[in-house]
């Protein structure tokens, strides 16, 4: 056995496993036939069907609004939590905050969803807020679980960054607020952008939590897609998947190219 080939072959098969279903999904979105497994000629009819489906379009709009709102809220709260954990030293409740920012990362979605719904129902009973469930309750739920992801990313950036920058600003007389906005924030900005994007994706992608805490008129895109695919394979879902995959692929390729260029420029400067 030639050892030099074992690893590339195994890794290659792994990549085939990762991408074969995605490729098939994309190919069959252009299929004329309703059957997603028999090729009957090229067609874009499922894309037309998708863009005339009011239910899907509405749900996509709802999802987008929720994702932007919760990613933004989660970024603000997540950066605050990261700042507190990475810079504030000891304080009462530190262990509690550490636990509450890491636990949502591994919490099963069914538990998060159910417990938040029960909270909302109890709160409504007690203080009348939130009145009913809809976009607002989904935003609160998504913010809570996305916050943890932002906090983890921002925290690791804060730990890695050169603290002498902040100290220099302080020595020059800047107050803590000024140090944060003029020095810390610009340095950790890429991490915040990454955190925001991750939170946005997680919110856009979530089915389980939204199903629990959403209400009438606030069905998100995953909720609508789930109710469709539960009944079986349907080609307009393939079309939707293809659009999402194309969008993500272009974004990731662009980000990769920018990172690569940046790394090369930095290498040349040194």
């Amino acid at each position, binding site marked *: 056995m030639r*050892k030099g080939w074992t690893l*590339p072959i*195994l*890794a290659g098969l792994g*990549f085939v496993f*990762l991408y*074969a*279903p995605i490729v098939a*999904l994309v190919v069959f979105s252009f299929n004329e036939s309703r059957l997603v*497994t*028999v090729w009957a000629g090229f067609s874009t009819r499922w894309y037309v069907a998708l863009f005339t489906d009011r239910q899907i379009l509405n749900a996509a709009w709802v999802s987008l609004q929720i994702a932007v709102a919760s990613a933004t809220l989660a970024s603000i*709260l997540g950066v605050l*939590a990261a700042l507190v954990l990475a*810079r*504030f*030293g000891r304080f009462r*409740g530190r262990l*509690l*905050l550490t636990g*509450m920012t*890491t*636990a*949502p990362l*591994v*919490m*099963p*979605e*069914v*538990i998060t969803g*159910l*417990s*938040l719904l*029960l*909270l909302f129902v*109890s709160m409504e009973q007690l203080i009348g807020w939130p009145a009913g469930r809809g976009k607002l309750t989904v935003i*609160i739920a998504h*913010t*809570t679980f996305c*916050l943890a992801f932002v906090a983890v990313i921002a925290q690791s950036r804060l730990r890695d960054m050169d603290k002498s920058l*902040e100290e220099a600003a*302080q020595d020059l007389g800047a*107050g803590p607020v000024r*140090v944060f906005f003029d020095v810390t924030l610009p340095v950790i900005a890429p991490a915040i952008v990454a955190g925001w994007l991750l939170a946005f*994706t997680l919110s856009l*992608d979530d089915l389980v939590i939204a199903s*629990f805490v959403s209400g009438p008129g606030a069905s998100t895109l995953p909720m609508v897609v789930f109710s469709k*695919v*539960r009944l079986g*394979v349907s080609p307009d*879902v393939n079309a939707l*998947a293809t659009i*999402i*995959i194309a969008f*993500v*692929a272009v974004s*990731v*390729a662009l980000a*990769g190219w920018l*990172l*690569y260029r940046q790394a090369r420029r930095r290498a040349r400067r040194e």
Partner: protein
Amino acid sequence: MSAPASPSDSATETPAAPRAPLRSRLGFSGRTLVIAVPMLWLLLFFLIPFFVLGRISLSDPMLARPPYTPLFDRGPDGVLEFLGDLENYALLWADTLYRNAYLSSIGIAFTSTVFALLIGYPIAYYIARSPEPRRTILLLLVILPFWTSFLLRVYAWMGFLQREGLINSFLLWVGVVDAPLQMMQTTFAVQLGIVYTYLPFMILPLYANLTKIDDAFFEAAADLGASPLVTFLTVTLPLSIPGIIAGCMLVFIPAIGEYVIPALLGGPDTLMIGRVLWDEFFSARDWPVAASVAIVMLFLVVAPVMWLQDYLDRRGLKG
């Protein structure tokens, strides 16, 4: 500073902060405010919900809004009575459905984790040993599916596994089988779905760990005459154990509570606890039982997480 500095202030990593303008104006420091905002949000929307969950798990279902009995009630003589009981937990213990669901969730999660490791390890190792820029490109290829919809990645397998699906068409065409295989709505399909969707969670920590191993170890092993296989088994594998543990936990823990994958790919006999909880809540509308299922599941998940945290902390301390 007019007020004496509290001991917590001196522990800040911002030693030079002679002024406390916010404190003098508002009566509390800006520091407290910054701590309070994320703290209060998480207390209200993360911690308190678990107490609500626990409280409702002690109630009984009732045809009302909300559909469960109150925990306290004034009896005929006006005395406040405690009405909660552990009936739901007794049900979980007595009814084999729930016990089997917990056990089978752990079993399915375990098998899937093992297969994710077997598939993920060579990929992580190959990426870690690749030169740039191939390494970055391959890494992006691993992350890319993770950014696309989870639901749609599960859906992609429905087209593959169904009776008239691509795999069956291929097998029939090659002549390996005479009749299409039943692959959809089986436990196998659920395990496949878990391995597929969670594979990036296995690969990334493994990769992070494998890139940190110093090349000198491999060179030393080769100089001492070890074959690549021996080097792998005696050098690489032991050094990558932290990565293996982190990756396995990241697959195993969320897989236990998985709902979407068994709902789409599993059959009626594929028991998973996330699905049982979902059905108790949405179909049976028994909120108290759903809450008690969640509480038991919470302990099932918290135990391995605490162990992992402890393990990582100890590794971190050792360097």
